[in-house]
């Protein structure tokens, strides 16, 4: 199961930016080696089997587990790193890793960047001078079509859904695949949290409208099994591009 990460840097390609790009790629490989649940030898796989302890794992494991615990609290359990019965922090790791990769580029002087981890996106600066980045939101009911376009400067956009590989997000309350929505998109300042909230929103179903929209700084769009989109009033989609309604 592959995830494509792409980097789009709209600043002059200085040696520092090139070095940071290599650093960001190396970081993602490190994250994969440590956190992949598909690799039996990863730290997280060994931790899940009880073969090691958090203290013996790379420091990032402890950081991620603390974030997972906080995510569980913030979402009243709708996000869980043990939704399937075994430790699997994947629902947080991808957004967190992309957020960090974006920070690496920023620290090297890249001010206008789009880092995309399998459709979970962290934007900084602008796509072009005076023009915000524009992110299409895939329509889960019509593969290949866009539902709407989100515009933003410093913004994270995360979508959870069934479109690509069928039902694969678990409802932590039942341990079974969530079926209340086709997709949930969350925008906000941090991709770590946008990704967590999108995963939680997908598990919540209709409850997400109220629970996620209430979170300070984050907005949500949901798509019902009938293919109908709903977004709260603050959702940063470009006017007239979507069938949505205010909160």
């Amino acid at each position, binding site marked *: *199961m*592959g*995830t*494509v*990460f*792409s*980097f*789009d*840097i709209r*600043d002059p*390609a200085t040696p520092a*930016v*090139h070095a940071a*790009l*290599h650093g960001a*790629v190396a970081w*993602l*490989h490190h*994250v*994969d080696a440590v956190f*992949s*649940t*598909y*690799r039996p030898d990863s730290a997280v796989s060994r931790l899940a089997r009880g073969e090691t302890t958090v203290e013996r794992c790379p420091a990032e494991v402890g950081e991620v587990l603390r974030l997972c615990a906080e995510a569980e609290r913030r979402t009243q359990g709708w996000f869980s*790193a043990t*939704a*399937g019965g075994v430790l*699997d922090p*994947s*629902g947080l*790791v991808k957004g967190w890793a992309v957020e960090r990769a974006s920070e690496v580029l920023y620290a090297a002087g*890249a001010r206008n960047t*789009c880092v*995309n981890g399998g*459709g979970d996106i962290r934007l900084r600066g602008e*796509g072009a001078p005076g023009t915000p980045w*524009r*992110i*299409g939101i*895939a*329509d*889960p009911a019509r*593969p*290949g*079509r*866009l*539902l709407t376009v989100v515009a933003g400067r410093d913004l994270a*956009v995360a*979508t959870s859904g069934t479109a*690509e*590989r*069928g*039902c694969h*997000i*678990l409802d*932590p309350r039942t341990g079974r*695949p969530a079926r209340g929505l086709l997709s949930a*998109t969350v925008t906000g300042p941090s991709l770590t949290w946008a990704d967590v909230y999108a*995963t939680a929103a997908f*598990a919540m179903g209709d409850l997400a409208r109220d629970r996620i929209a209430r979170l300070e700084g984050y907005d949500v769009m949901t798509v019902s099994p009938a293919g109908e989109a709903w977004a709260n009033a603050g959702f940063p989609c470009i006017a007239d591009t979507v069938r949505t309604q205010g909160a």
Partner: protein
Amino acid sequence: MRRAAVTTLSTAAGVVLLLSLKPHQSAPPPAVAAHRPGTSPPAHAPGSSRTGTFTGDVIDTDYGPVQVAVTLQQGRLTAVKALQVPSDRGRSREISSYAVPRLTQEALGAQSAQIDAVSGASYTSEGYTQSLQSALDKAGA
């Protein structure tokens, strides 16, 4: 349909494929998705020096076969060309005409006047990703 190779307009761009990092809070992967468990990530490393065009495997999707070729210059991905995309049915053609240029732009981090990237997924993307990955494998990138 826009099938020609797209050259990136970004001043710097990179793509990395990680085989084994799952998206989201996942159920065990379906057999078809777990096609190469445990392999090390055959990622494009921007520091490597391979140059040339490499053709990916043909990947069958629900909508038909997908195949891409990649062009690398000194290890950097400079172009992705769709060699085969679903086109024999109206709906497939409609999907491909949108999805493939979009995926190519995503892969290259290329600039588009309209859309810079897409959040969410499409059916074709899995096949596209697999073919892209196999092309990068062949390049030894």
